Protein backbone atom coordinates (compact mmCIF):
# COMPACT_ATOMS: atom_id res chain seq x y z
CA UNK A 1 0.00 0.00 0.00
CA UNK A 2 1.47 3.34 -0.96
CA UNK A 3 2.06 5.91 1.74
CA UNK A 4 0.06 8.57 -0.06
CA UNK A 5 -3.02 6.37 -0.02
CA UNK A 6 -2.40 5.41 3.60
CA UNK A 7 -2.52 8.97 4.87
CA UNK A 8 -5.67 9.95 3.00
CA UNK A 9 -8.30 9.68 5.75
CA UNK A 10 -11.44 7.73 5.01
CA UNK A 11 -14.74 9.09 6.29
CA UNK A 12 -16.87 6.95 8.52
CA UNK A 13 -20.32 6.89 6.98
CA UNK A 14 -23.33 8.04 8.96
CA UNK A 15 -24.81 4.54 8.99
CA UNK A 16 -21.54 3.13 10.32
CA UNK A 17 -21.44 5.80 13.02
CA UNK A 18 -25.02 5.00 14.01
CA UNK A 19 -24.25 1.27 13.91
CA UNK A 20 -21.24 1.67 16.18
CA UNK A 21 -23.29 3.79 18.58
CA UNK A 22 -26.13 1.28 18.56
CA UNK A 23 -23.79 -1.65 19.24
CA UNK A 24 -22.49 0.20 22.29
CA UNK A 25 -26.06 0.44 23.58
CA UNK A 26 -27.15 -3.09 22.72
CA UNK A 27 -24.17 -4.45 24.63
CA UNK A 28 -25.73 -2.93 27.80
CA UNK A 29 -29.46 -3.29 27.19
CA UNK A 30 -30.74 -2.82 30.74
CA UNK A 31 -28.68 0.28 31.35
CA UNK A 32 -29.72 1.73 28.00
CA UNK A 33 -33.37 1.04 28.77
CA UNK A 34 -33.21 2.69 32.18
CA UNK A 35 -31.35 5.72 30.98
CA UNK A 36 -33.80 6.30 28.14
CA UNK A 37 -36.68 6.00 30.59
CA UNK A 38 -36.35 9.49 32.05
CA UNK A 39 -36.63 11.13 28.66
CA UNK A 40 -39.47 8.79 27.73
CA UNK A 41 -41.45 9.77 30.83
CA UNK A 42 -40.86 13.46 30.26
CA UNK A 43 -41.85 13.31 26.60
CA UNK A 44 -44.85 11.12 27.41
CA UNK A 45 -46.00 13.70 29.96
CA UNK A 46 -45.58 16.58 27.54
CA UNK A 47 -47.17 14.75 24.61
CA UNK A 48 -50.14 13.50 26.59
CA UNK A 49 -50.75 16.90 28.20
CA UNK A 50 -50.66 18.56 24.81
CA UNK A 51 -52.69 15.75 23.25
CA UNK A 52 -55.34 15.71 25.99
CA UNK A 53 -55.57 19.47 25.96
CA UNK A 54 -55.80 19.55 22.16
CA UNK A 55 -58.43 16.81 22.19
CA UNK A 56 -60.56 18.48 24.85
CA UNK A 57 -60.05 21.87 23.27
CA UNK A 58 -61.05 20.44 19.92
CA UNK A 59 -64.19 19.16 21.61
CA UNK A 60 -64.85 22.56 23.21
CA UNK A 61 -64.13 24.36 19.96
CA UNK A 62 -66.43 21.99 18.09
CA UNK A 63 -69.11 22.70 20.69
CA UNK A 64 -68.47 26.41 20.38
CA UNK A 65 -68.70 26.12 16.61
CA UNK A 66 -72.01 24.31 16.76
CA UNK A 67 -73.39 26.76 19.33
CA UNK A 68 -71.97 29.75 17.53
CA UNK A 69 -70.07 32.69 18.93
CA UNK A 70 -72.55 35.10 17.35
CA UNK A 71 -75.05 34.98 20.19
CA UNK A 72 -75.52 38.12 22.31
CA UNK A 73 -77.47 38.26 25.50
CA UNK A 74 -79.20 41.52 26.47
CA UNK A 75 -80.36 42.13 30.01
CA UNK A 76 -81.49 45.07 32.03
CA UNK A 77 -78.69 46.18 34.26
CA UNK A 78 -79.10 46.16 37.98
CA UNK A 79 -80.98 49.14 39.34
CA UNK A 80 -79.71 51.04 42.38
CA UNK A 81 -81.93 48.91 44.55
CA UNK A 82 -80.15 45.80 43.22
CA UNK A 83 -83.22 44.22 41.63
CA UNK A 84 -83.14 43.21 38.02
CA UNK A 85 -85.52 45.27 36.01
CA UNK A 86 -87.24 44.41 32.80
CA UNK A 87 -86.22 45.72 29.43
CA UNK A 88 -88.56 48.19 27.72
CA UNK A 89 -91.50 46.70 25.84
CA UNK A 90 -90.07 48.16 22.64
CA UNK A 91 -86.75 46.38 23.05
CA UNK A 92 -87.44 43.44 20.78
CA UNK A 93 -89.01 45.30 17.83
CA UNK A 94 -86.11 47.76 17.98
CA UNK A 95 -83.51 44.98 18.04
CA UNK A 96 -85.10 43.21 15.07
CA UNK A 97 -84.58 46.38 13.09
CA UNK A 98 -80.77 46.24 13.42
CA UNK A 99 -79.69 44.97 10.00
CA UNK A 100 -77.13 42.26 10.94
CA UNK A 101 -79.50 40.70 13.49
CA UNK A 102 -80.54 37.32 12.15
CA UNK A 103 -82.97 36.26 14.84
CA UNK A 104 -83.86 37.29 18.35
CA UNK A 105 -85.85 35.71 21.12
CA UNK A 106 -86.55 36.47 24.74
CA UNK A 107 -87.56 35.23 28.14
CA UNK A 108 -89.32 37.07 30.93
CA UNK A 109 -89.22 36.12 34.56
CA UNK A 110 -92.55 34.99 36.00
CA UNK A 111 -92.91 35.50 39.72
CA UNK A 112 -94.10 32.03 40.53
CA UNK A 113 -92.52 28.77 41.60
CA UNK A 114 -92.72 25.31 40.11
CA UNK A 115 -93.30 22.15 42.17
CA UNK A 116 -93.79 18.54 41.27
CA UNK A 117 -97.15 18.60 43.12
CA UNK A 118 -98.95 21.17 45.18
CA UNK A 119 -98.24 19.10 48.32
CA UNK A 120 -94.63 20.26 48.28
CA UNK A 121 -94.09 23.04 50.85
CA UNK A 122 -93.86 26.36 49.04
CA UNK A 123 -90.35 27.17 50.31
CA UNK A 124 -88.71 24.29 48.44
CA UNK A 125 -88.27 25.86 45.03
CA UNK A 126 -85.07 23.91 44.32
CA UNK A 127 -83.79 27.05 42.63
CA UNK A 128 -86.06 26.49 39.67
CA UNK A 129 -87.09 29.64 37.91
CA UNK A 130 -90.35 30.02 36.05
CA UNK A 131 -90.07 31.99 32.84
CA UNK A 132 -92.09 32.98 29.86
CA UNK A 133 -90.33 32.18 26.60
CA UNK A 134 -90.80 32.93 22.90
CA UNK A 135 -91.44 29.88 20.76
CA UNK A 136 -88.23 30.53 18.79
CA UNK A 137 -86.02 30.46 21.91
CA UNK A 138 -84.74 26.95 21.31
CA UNK A 139 -83.74 27.76 17.75
CA UNK A 140 -82.10 31.06 18.76
CA UNK A 141 -80.00 29.35 21.44
CA UNK A 142 -79.10 26.50 19.02
CA UNK A 143 -80.52 24.18 21.65
CA UNK A 144 -82.30 20.89 21.23
CA UNK A 145 -84.95 18.84 22.98
CA UNK A 146 -83.87 15.83 24.93
CA UNK A 147 -87.43 14.51 24.95
CA UNK A 148 -90.84 15.83 23.95
CA UNK A 149 -91.28 19.11 22.12
CA UNK A 150 -90.73 22.81 22.71
CA UNK A 151 -93.48 25.40 23.06
CA UNK A 152 -95.41 25.99 19.86
CA UNK A 153 -97.72 28.77 18.73
CA UNK A 154 -100.52 26.51 19.96
CA UNK A 155 -99.19 25.35 23.32
CA UNK A 156 -97.91 28.80 24.30
CA UNK A 157 -101.52 29.77 24.98
CA UNK A 158 -102.19 27.00 27.48
CA UNK A 159 -100.80 25.78 30.81
CA UNK A 160 -97.94 23.93 29.20
CA UNK A 161 -94.28 24.07 30.26
CA UNK A 162 -90.97 22.88 28.89
CA UNK A 163 -88.31 22.04 31.46
CA UNK A 164 -84.61 22.80 31.35
CA UNK A 165 -82.24 19.89 31.92
CA UNK A 166 -81.43 20.79 35.52
CA UNK A 167 -84.98 21.84 36.33
CA UNK A 168 -86.27 18.46 35.11
CA UNK A 169 -83.87 16.58 37.34
CA UNK A 170 -84.69 18.71 40.35
CA UNK A 171 -88.38 18.16 39.78
CA UNK A 172 -87.72 14.44 39.73
CA UNK A 173 -88.03 13.73 36.02
CA UNK A 174 -85.34 11.26 35.15
CA UNK A 175 -87.30 10.68 32.01
CA UNK A 176 -90.06 12.60 30.39
CA UNK A 177 -93.44 11.00 30.83
CA UNK A 178 -96.10 12.27 28.40
CA UNK A 179 -98.92 14.17 30.07
CA UNK A 180 -97.05 14.42 33.36
CA UNK A 181 -97.89 17.49 35.37
CA UNK A 182 -96.16 20.10 37.50
CA UNK A 183 -97.69 22.68 39.80
CA UNK A 184 -97.01 26.35 39.04
CA UNK A 185 -98.75 29.00 41.10
CA UNK A 186 -101.32 26.46 42.26
CA UNK A 187 -102.28 25.45 38.71
CA UNK A 188 -101.35 22.21 36.96
CA UNK A 189 -99.17 22.50 33.87
CA UNK A 190 -98.58 19.77 31.32
CA UNK A 191 -94.89 19.08 30.75
CA UNK A 192 -94.44 19.15 26.95
CA UNK A 193 -90.79 18.16 26.97
CA UNK A 194 -87.33 18.38 28.47
CA UNK A 195 -84.52 20.34 26.86
CA UNK A 196 -80.93 19.15 26.45
CA UNK A 197 -78.34 21.14 28.40
CA UNK A 198 -77.64 24.57 26.90
CA UNK A 199 -74.05 25.56 27.46
CA UNK A 200 -74.73 29.09 26.19
CA UNK A 201 -77.64 29.73 28.58
CA UNK A 202 -77.13 27.84 31.85
CA UNK A 203 -80.03 29.68 33.51
CA UNK A 204 -82.42 28.18 30.93
CA UNK A 205 -81.26 24.75 32.17
CA UNK A 206 -82.69 25.65 35.57
CA UNK A 207 -85.97 27.05 34.24
CA UNK A 208 -89.51 25.95 33.55
CA UNK A 209 -90.68 27.78 30.42
CA UNK A 210 -94.25 28.62 29.48
CA UNK A 211 -95.59 30.78 26.65
CA UNK A 212 -95.88 34.56 26.98
CA UNK A 213 -99.69 34.48 26.38
CA UNK A 214 -100.15 31.92 29.17
CA UNK A 215 -97.92 33.92 31.54
CA UNK A 216 -99.92 37.06 30.89
CA UNK A 217 -103.18 35.16 31.32
CA UNK A 218 -102.22 33.31 34.54
CA UNK A 219 -99.93 35.81 36.27
CA UNK A 220 -100.95 39.13 34.75
CA UNK A 221 -97.38 39.59 33.59
CA UNK A 222 -96.55 42.41 31.18
CA UNK A 223 -94.84 41.10 28.04
CA UNK A 224 -91.66 43.11 28.72
CA UNK A 225 -88.69 40.68 28.41
CA UNK A 226 -85.99 40.31 31.07
CA UNK A 227 -83.44 38.74 28.73
CA UNK A 228 -83.26 39.05 24.96
CA UNK A 229 -81.08 36.62 22.98
CA UNK A 230 -79.79 37.97 19.68
CA UNK A 231 -78.11 36.11 16.80
CA UNK A 232 -76.15 38.37 14.49
CA UNK A 233 -74.15 37.73 11.36
CA UNK A 234 -70.87 36.34 12.69
CA UNK A 235 -68.68 39.20 11.45
CA UNK A 236 -70.93 41.89 12.98
CA UNK A 237 -71.06 40.63 16.56
CA UNK A 238 -69.03 43.49 18.01
CA UNK A 239 -70.79 46.15 15.98
CA UNK A 240 -74.21 44.91 17.03
CA UNK A 241 -73.07 44.57 20.62
CA UNK A 242 -71.98 48.21 20.48
CA UNK A 243 -75.31 49.58 19.31
CA UNK A 244 -77.55 47.31 21.38
CA UNK A 245 -77.73 49.37 24.62
CA UNK A 246 -78.75 52.55 22.86
CA UNK A 247 -81.20 50.65 20.68
CA UNK A 248 -82.84 48.91 23.57
CA UNK A 249 -83.02 51.80 26.00
CA UNK A 250 -82.26 55.10 24.21
CA UNK A 251 -82.59 57.33 27.27
CA UNK A 252 -80.54 55.10 29.61
CA UNK A 253 -78.21 52.91 27.56
CA UNK A 254 -76.02 52.29 30.62
CA UNK A 255 -78.89 50.37 32.26
CA UNK A 256 -78.52 47.68 29.59
CA UNK A 257 -76.01 44.87 29.90
CA UNK A 258 -74.87 43.10 26.75
CA UNK A 259 -72.81 39.93 27.04
CA UNK A 260 -71.53 37.21 24.76
CA UNK A 261 -72.34 33.84 26.38
CA UNK A 262 -69.73 32.02 24.29
CA UNK A 263 -67.10 33.97 26.26
CA UNK A 264 -67.63 31.56 29.11
CA UNK A 265 -66.72 28.62 26.86
CA UNK A 266 -63.77 30.49 25.42
CA UNK A 267 -62.65 31.15 28.97
CA UNK A 268 -62.78 27.43 29.67
CA UNK A 269 -60.47 26.85 26.71
CA UNK A 270 -58.11 29.47 28.10
CA UNK A 271 -58.35 28.01 31.61
CA UNK A 272 -57.26 24.71 30.12
CA UNK A 273 -54.08 26.42 28.97
CA UNK A 274 -53.23 27.60 32.47
CA UNK A 275 -53.73 24.09 33.80
CA UNK A 276 -51.55 22.74 31.02
CA UNK A 277 -48.62 24.98 31.86
CA UNK A 278 -48.42 23.26 35.22
CA UNK A 279 -48.17 19.81 33.67
CA UNK A 280 -45.88 21.00 30.92
CA UNK A 281 -43.65 22.40 33.65
CA UNK A 282 -43.61 19.00 35.35
CA UNK A 283 -42.85 17.37 32.00
CA UNK A 284 -39.96 19.77 31.51
CA UNK A 285 -38.56 18.82 34.91
CA UNK A 286 -38.83 15.12 33.99
CA UNK A 287 -37.03 15.87 30.72
CA UNK A 288 -34.27 17.71 32.53
CA UNK A 289 -33.83 14.82 34.95
CA UNK A 290 -33.82 12.44 31.97
CA UNK A 291 -31.16 14.53 30.24
CA UNK A 292 -28.97 14.59 33.34
CA UNK A 293 -29.45 10.81 33.62
CA UNK A 294 -28.19 10.31 30.09
CA UNK A 295 -25.22 12.60 30.66
CA UNK A 296 -24.42 10.61 33.79
CA UNK A 297 -24.62 7.27 32.01
CA UNK A 298 -22.48 8.57 29.16
CA UNK A 299 -19.77 9.83 31.52
CA UNK A 300 -19.67 6.43 33.23
CA UNK A 301 -19.68 4.71 29.87
CA UNK A 302 -16.64 6.67 28.70
CA UNK A 303 -14.78 5.88 31.93
CA UNK A 304 -15.58 2.19 31.67
CA UNK A 305 -14.76 1.88 28.04
CA UNK A 306 -11.33 3.49 27.99
CA UNK A 307 -9.72 0.36 26.58
CA UNK A 308 -12.36 0.18 23.84
CA UNK A 309 -11.56 3.78 22.98
CA UNK A 310 -7.85 2.96 22.89
CA UNK A 311 -8.49 -0.09 20.72
CA UNK A 312 -10.60 1.89 18.27
CA UNK A 313 -7.90 4.53 18.03
CA UNK A 314 -5.41 1.74 17.29
CA UNK A 315 -7.77 0.41 14.62
CA UNK A 316 -7.69 3.82 13.00
CA UNK A 317 -10.53 5.78 14.58
CA UNK A 318 -9.92 9.51 14.51
CA UNK A 319 -10.75 11.75 17.45
CA UNK A 320 -13.83 12.77 15.50
CA UNK A 321 -14.87 9.12 15.01
CA UNK A 322 -14.66 8.51 18.76
CA UNK A 323 -16.55 11.71 19.56
CA UNK A 324 -19.27 10.87 17.04
CA UNK A 325 -19.57 7.34 18.37
CA UNK A 326 -20.44 8.55 21.86
CA UNK A 327 -22.56 11.38 20.53
CA UNK A 328 -24.46 8.86 18.40
CA UNK A 329 -24.99 6.67 21.48
CA UNK A 330 -26.38 9.58 23.43
CA UNK A 331 -28.59 10.73 20.55
CA UNK A 332 -29.88 7.20 20.01
CA UNK A 333 -30.65 6.81 23.71
CA UNK A 334 -32.49 10.11 23.89
CA UNK A 335 -34.12 9.62 20.48
CA UNK A 336 -35.40 6.18 21.47
CA UNK A 337 -36.66 7.66 24.73
CA UNK A 338 -38.35 10.41 22.77
CA UNK A 339 -40.03 8.05 20.33
CA UNK A 340 -41.19 5.79 23.16
CA UNK A 341 -42.41 8.84 25.07
CA UNK A 342 -44.38 10.13 22.09
CA UNK A 343 -45.93 6.69 21.60
CA UNK A 344 -46.84 6.49 25.29
CA UNK A 345 -48.23 10.01 25.19
CA UNK A 346 -50.44 9.15 22.22
CA UNK A 347 -51.69 6.03 24.00
CA UNK A 348 -52.55 8.07 27.11
CA UNK A 349 -54.34 10.65 24.96
CA UNK A 350 -56.18 7.89 23.14
CA UNK A 351 -57.38 6.44 26.44
CA UNK A 352 -58.54 9.90 27.53
CA UNK A 353 -60.27 10.58 24.22
CA UNK A 354 -62.01 7.21 24.30
CA UNK A 355 -63.24 7.52 27.87
CA UNK A 356 -64.34 11.14 27.41
CA UNK A 357 -65.86 10.34 24.05
CA UNK A 358 -64.01 13.11 22.26
CA UNK A 359 -62.04 12.94 19.05
CA UNK A 360 -58.34 12.05 19.38
CA UNK A 361 -56.21 15.05 18.50
CA UNK A 362 -52.43 14.85 18.80
CA UNK A 363 -50.76 18.05 17.65
CA UNK A 364 -48.01 17.43 15.09
CA UNK A 365 -45.99 20.03 16.94
CA UNK A 366 -46.12 17.87 20.08
CA UNK A 367 -44.82 14.82 18.20
CA UNK A 368 -42.16 16.63 16.21
CA UNK A 369 -41.29 18.89 19.13
CA UNK A 370 -41.07 15.96 21.52
CA UNK A 371 -38.62 14.09 19.33
CA UNK A 372 -36.67 17.25 18.53
CA UNK A 373 -36.37 18.13 22.23
CA UNK A 374 -35.17 14.63 23.11
CA UNK A 375 -32.55 14.75 20.37
CA UNK A 376 -31.46 18.18 21.56
CA UNK A 377 -31.21 16.90 25.13
CA UNK A 378 -29.30 13.83 23.92
CA UNK A 379 -26.90 16.05 22.02
CA UNK A 380 -26.29 18.31 24.99
CA UNK A 381 -26.01 15.42 27.43
CA UNK A 382 -23.63 13.49 25.17
CA UNK A 383 -21.40 16.33 24.04
CA UNK A 384 -19.17 16.64 27.08
CA UNK A 385 -18.59 12.88 27.57
CA UNK A 386 -18.03 12.49 23.82
CA UNK A 387 -15.43 15.26 23.77
CA UNK A 388 -13.71 13.72 26.78
CA UNK A 389 -13.62 10.36 25.02
CA UNK A 390 -12.15 11.96 21.91
CA UNK A 391 -9.47 13.81 23.88
CA UNK A 392 -8.30 10.67 25.63
CA UNK A 393 -4.81 9.84 24.41
CA UNK A 394 -4.68 6.37 22.82
CA UNK A 395 -1.81 5.26 25.04
CA UNK A 396 -3.54 6.32 28.24
CA UNK A 397 -6.68 4.61 27.05
CA UNK A 398 -4.80 1.37 26.35
CA UNK A 399 -2.79 1.38 29.58
CA UNK A 400 -5.82 1.60 31.85
CA UNK A 401 -7.03 -1.92 32.36
Amino acid at each position, binding site marked *: *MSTAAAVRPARLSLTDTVRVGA*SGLSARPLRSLLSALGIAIGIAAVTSVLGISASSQAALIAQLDSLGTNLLQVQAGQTFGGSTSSLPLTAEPMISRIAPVQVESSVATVSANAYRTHYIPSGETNGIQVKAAKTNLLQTLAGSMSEGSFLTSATENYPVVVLGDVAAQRLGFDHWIPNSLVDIGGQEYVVAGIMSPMPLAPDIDRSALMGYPQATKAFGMSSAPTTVYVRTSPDQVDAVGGVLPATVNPPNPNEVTVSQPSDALSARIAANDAFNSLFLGLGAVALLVGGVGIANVMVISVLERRSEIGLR*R*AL*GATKGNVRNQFLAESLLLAGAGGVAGVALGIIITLIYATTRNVQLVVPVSAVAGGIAISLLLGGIAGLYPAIRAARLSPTDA*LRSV
Partner: protein
Amino acid sequence: MTAVVTSVQPDAPSDAVMELVGVRKTYPGPVEVLHGIDLTIGRGELLSIVGPSGSGKSTMLHLMGTLDLPTTGSVLIDGVDVATLSDRQLSSFRARTLGFVFQQFYLIDGVSAVDNVANGLLYSGVALGKRRSAAVAALKRVGLGHRLYSPPAKLSGGERQRVAIARALIARPAIVLADEPTGSLDTQTGQEVLSLLRELNGDGTTVIVITHDPAVAKAMDRQVTIRDGLIVSDVARTLEVAR
Protein backbone atom coordinates in the same frame (compact mmCIF):
# COMPACT_ATOMS: atom_id res chain seq x y z
CA MET B 1 18.11 -26.74 9.83
CA THR B 2 21.05 -24.76 11.04
CA ALA B 3 20.94 -21.37 12.61
CA VAL B 4 23.75 -19.00 11.94
CA VAL B 5 23.82 -16.44 14.69
CA THR B 6 25.53 -13.13 14.24
CA SER B 7 25.84 -10.78 17.14
CA VAL B 8 26.37 -7.67 15.15
CA GLN B 9 23.82 -5.13 14.05
CA PRO B 10 22.53 -6.50 10.77
CA ASP B 11 23.05 -4.47 7.65
CA ALA B 12 20.36 -1.85 7.52
CA PRO B 13 17.94 -3.25 4.96
CA SER B 14 17.64 -1.04 1.95
CA ASP B 15 13.88 -1.39 2.13
CA ALA B 16 13.24 -0.08 5.66
CA VAL B 17 9.61 -0.14 6.67
CA MET B 18 10.18 1.37 10.12
CA GLU B 19 12.97 3.52 11.46
CA LEU B 20 13.49 4.89 14.95
CA VAL B 21 16.11 7.62 15.03
CA GLY B 22 17.38 8.89 18.39
CA VAL B 23 14.02 8.27 19.98
CA ARG B 24 13.58 9.48 23.55
CA LYS B 25 10.35 9.42 25.49
CA THR B 26 9.73 11.36 28.67
CA TYR B 27 6.54 10.96 30.68
CA PRO B 28 5.24 13.67 32.96
CA GLY B 29 7.07 13.39 36.24
CA PRO B 30 9.29 13.84 34.44
CA VAL B 31 10.69 10.35 33.84
CA GLU B 32 12.63 9.50 30.74
CA VAL B 33 11.63 5.98 29.76
CA LEU B 34 13.49 5.66 26.44
CA HIS B 35 16.96 7.12 26.32
CA GLY B 36 17.70 7.26 22.62
CA ILE B 37 16.64 4.34 20.50
CA ASP B 38 17.98 3.77 17.00
CA LEU B 39 16.37 0.87 15.20
CA THR B 40 15.74 0.04 11.58
CA ILE B 41 13.30 -2.66 10.64
CA GLY B 42 13.19 -4.02 7.11
CA ARG B 43 10.07 -4.93 5.18
CA GLY B 44 8.98 -8.47 5.94
CA GLU B 45 11.03 -8.95 9.08
CA LEU B 46 9.91 -11.13 11.98
CA LEU B 47 11.30 -9.35 14.97
CA SER B 48 11.03 -9.48 18.72
CA ILE B 49 11.70 -6.75 21.20
CA VAL B 50 12.52 -8.43 24.46
CA GLY B 51 13.28 -7.05 27.87
CA PRO B 52 12.21 -7.17 31.48
CA SER B 53 9.01 -5.59 32.68
CA GLY B 54 9.25 -1.81 32.89
CA SER B 55 12.10 -1.57 30.41
CA GLY B 56 10.02 0.55 27.99
CA LYS B 57 8.81 -2.05 25.48
CA SER B 58 5.17 -0.99 25.44
CA THR B 59 6.24 2.62 25.17
CA MET B 60 8.26 1.66 22.11
CA LEU B 61 5.31 -0.19 20.61
CA HIS B 62 3.10 2.84 21.10
CA LEU B 63 5.65 5.02 19.34
CA MET B 64 6.09 2.53 16.49
CA GLY B 65 2.31 2.26 16.27
CA THR B 66 1.89 6.06 16.03
CA LEU B 67 -0.30 5.94 19.14
CA ASP B 68 2.11 8.39 20.73
CA LEU B 69 4.90 10.65 19.52
CA PRO B 70 8.51 10.62 20.75
CA THR B 71 9.63 13.49 22.95
CA THR B 72 12.73 13.88 20.77
CA GLY B 73 13.96 11.91 17.79
CA SER B 74 11.74 10.61 15.07
CA VAL B 75 9.77 7.58 13.99
CA LEU B 76 9.62 6.98 10.26
CA ILE B 77 7.23 4.55 8.69
CA ASP B 78 7.70 3.93 4.97
CA GLY B 79 10.03 6.91 5.12
CA VAL B 80 7.36 9.22 6.49
CA ASP B 81 8.10 11.01 9.76
CA VAL B 82 4.93 10.39 11.74
CA ALA B 83 5.38 13.65 13.65
CA THR B 84 4.48 15.51 10.46
CA LEU B 85 1.04 13.92 10.22
CA SER B 86 -2.22 15.25 11.66
CA ASP B 87 -4.46 13.19 13.96
CA ARG B 88 -6.67 12.29 11.04
CA GLN B 89 -3.71 11.27 8.90
CA LEU B 90 -2.18 9.23 11.73
CA SER B 91 -5.50 7.51 12.28
CA SER B 92 -5.73 6.68 8.62
CA PHE B 93 -2.17 5.40 8.73
CA ARG B 94 -3.05 3.06 11.60
CA ALA B 95 -6.20 1.92 9.83
CA ARG B 96 -4.39 0.90 6.67
CA THR B 97 -0.74 0.28 7.47
CA LEU B 98 -0.65 -0.99 11.04
CA GLY B 99 -2.24 -3.91 12.83
CA PHE B 100 -2.21 -4.33 16.61
CA VAL B 101 -2.40 -7.37 18.86
CA PHE B 102 -2.53 -6.82 22.60
CA GLN B 103 -2.01 -9.04 25.61
CA GLN B 104 -5.56 -8.21 26.80
CA PHE B 105 -7.05 -8.93 23.33
CA TYR B 106 -9.39 -5.91 23.69
CA LEU B 107 -12.35 -7.58 22.06
CA ILE B 108 -15.59 -5.65 22.38
CA ASP B 109 -18.07 -7.42 24.65
CA GLY B 110 -21.48 -8.23 23.29
CA VAL B 111 -20.22 -8.14 19.72
CA SER B 112 -19.74 -11.37 17.77
CA ALA B 113 -16.32 -12.58 16.63
CA VAL B 114 -17.12 -11.63 13.04
CA ASP B 115 -18.10 -8.10 13.98
CA ASN B 116 -15.07 -7.71 16.23
CA VAL B 117 -12.85 -8.71 13.33
CA ALA B 118 -14.83 -6.56 10.89
CA ASN B 119 -14.03 -3.55 13.10
CA GLY B 120 -10.49 -3.91 11.75
CA LEU B 121 -11.78 -2.50 8.46
CA LEU B 122 -14.33 -0.08 9.92
CA TYR B 123 -12.10 2.96 9.84
CA SER B 124 -10.76 2.35 6.33
CA GLY B 125 -14.10 3.21 4.80
CA VAL B 126 -14.97 -0.33 3.70
CA ALA B 127 -18.70 -1.10 3.38
CA LEU B 128 -20.34 -3.40 5.93
CA GLY B 129 -20.94 -6.31 3.58
CA LYS B 130 -17.30 -6.39 2.48
CA ARG B 131 -16.12 -5.98 6.07
CA ARG B 132 -18.16 -8.98 7.16
CA SER B 133 -17.08 -11.25 4.32
CA ALA B 134 -13.44 -10.28 4.85
CA ALA B 135 -13.91 -10.95 8.57
CA VAL B 136 -15.28 -14.42 7.84
CA ALA B 137 -12.28 -15.13 5.65
CA ALA B 138 -9.85 -13.80 8.28
CA LEU B 139 -11.46 -15.91 11.01
CA LYS B 140 -11.24 -19.00 8.81
CA ARG B 141 -7.60 -18.18 8.23
CA VAL B 142 -6.87 -18.23 11.97
CA GLY B 143 -8.83 -21.47 12.32
CA LEU B 144 -11.99 -20.04 13.86
CA GLY B 145 -14.40 -20.77 11.02
CA HIS B 146 -16.60 -22.56 13.53
CA ARG B 147 -16.70 -19.65 15.98
CA LEU B 148 -17.86 -16.88 13.65
CA TYR B 149 -20.83 -15.69 15.64
CA SER B 150 -19.67 -16.40 19.17
CA PRO B 151 -19.39 -13.45 21.54
CA PRO B 152 -15.93 -13.05 23.15
CA ALA B 153 -17.31 -14.22 26.50
CA LYS B 154 -17.90 -17.67 24.99
CA LEU B 155 -14.33 -18.01 23.64
CA SER B 156 -11.22 -19.39 25.32
CA GLY B 157 -8.15 -17.20 25.78
CA GLY B 158 -6.38 -18.68 22.77
CA GLU B 159 -9.48 -18.24 20.64
CA ARG B 160 -9.81 -14.63 21.74
CA GLN B 161 -6.23 -13.91 20.77
CA ARG B 162 -6.82 -15.54 17.40
CA VAL B 163 -9.85 -13.30 16.89
CA ALA B 164 -7.62 -10.34 17.74
CA ILE B 165 -5.02 -11.53 15.22
CA ALA B 166 -7.73 -11.90 12.58
CA ARG B 167 -8.78 -8.33 13.36
CA ALA B 168 -5.16 -7.15 13.00
CA LEU B 169 -4.61 -8.86 9.67
CA ILE B 170 -7.98 -8.16 8.02
CA ALA B 171 -6.86 -4.79 6.60
CA ARG B 172 -3.68 -6.42 5.19
CA PRO B 173 -1.40 -4.06 7.12
CA ALA B 174 2.28 -3.73 6.22
CA ILE B 175 3.23 -4.02 9.88
CA VAL B 176 1.69 -5.98 12.74
CA LEU B 177 2.66 -4.91 16.24
CA ALA B 178 2.00 -7.44 19.00
CA ASP B 179 2.43 -6.45 22.66
CA GLU B 180 2.90 -9.58 24.78
CA PRO B 181 0.52 -11.56 22.55
CA THR B 182 1.15 -14.73 24.56
CA GLY B 183 1.17 -13.00 27.93
CA SER B 184 -2.28 -14.20 28.92
CA LEU B 185 -2.00 -17.66 27.39
CA ASP B 186 -0.56 -20.98 28.46
CA THR B 187 2.55 -22.22 26.65
CA GLN B 188 0.66 -24.47 24.26
CA THR B 189 -1.83 -21.86 23.05
CA GLY B 190 0.98 -19.30 23.11
CA GLN B 191 2.86 -21.47 20.63
CA GLU B 192 -0.19 -21.62 18.36
CA VAL B 193 -0.54 -17.86 18.42
CA LEU B 194 3.16 -17.46 17.60
CA SER B 195 2.95 -19.79 14.65
CA LEU B 196 -0.01 -17.78 13.37
CA LEU B 197 2.10 -14.64 13.55
CA ARG B 198 4.93 -16.49 11.82
CA GLU B 199 2.50 -17.52 9.07
CA LEU B 200 1.41 -13.93 8.71
CA ASN B 201 5.05 -12.97 8.32
CA GLY B 202 5.40 -15.64 5.67
CA ASP B 203 2.91 -13.66 3.59
CA GLY B 204 5.21 -10.64 3.66
CA THR B 205 3.86 -8.77 6.64
CA THR B 206 6.40 -7.23 8.97
CA VAL B 207 5.71 -8.67 12.41
CA ILE B 208 7.05 -7.06 15.57
CA VAL B 209 6.47 -9.02 18.77
CA ILE B 210 7.11 -7.45 22.14
CA THR B 211 7.73 -9.84 24.98
CA HIS B 212 9.42 -10.26 28.33
CA ASP B 213 9.74 -13.98 27.64
CA PRO B 214 13.10 -15.01 26.12
CA ALA B 215 11.55 -18.22 24.81
CA VAL B 216 9.03 -16.25 22.79
CA ALA B 217 11.76 -13.89 21.61
CA LYS B 218 13.90 -16.77 20.40
CA ALA B 219 11.08 -17.94 18.14
CA MET B 220 11.53 -14.78 16.08
CA ASP B 221 14.08 -14.19 13.34
CA ARG B 222 15.61 -11.15 14.98
CA GLN B 223 15.78 -10.26 18.65
CA VAL B 224 16.24 -6.74 19.90
CA THR B 225 16.93 -6.73 23.61
CA ILE B 226 16.07 -3.62 25.55
CA ARG B 227 16.91 -2.78 29.15
CA ASP B 228 16.07 0.42 30.99
CA GLY B 229 15.16 2.22 27.82
CA LEU B 230 18.23 1.32 25.81
CA ILE B 231 18.90 -1.35 23.21
CA VAL B 232 21.50 -3.68 24.67
CA SER B 233 21.68 -6.23 21.88
CA ASP B 234 20.31 -6.82 18.43
CA VAL B 235 20.70 -10.35 17.18
CA ALA B 236 19.64 -11.72 13.83
CA ARG B 237 19.28 -15.40 13.24
CA THR B 238 19.50 -16.40 9.67
CA LEU B 239 17.70 -19.56 8.87
CA GLU B 240 18.91 -21.86 6.23
CA VAL B 241 16.00 -24.02 5.50
CA ALA B 242 16.42 -26.89 3.11
CA ARG B 243 13.55 -26.67 0.73
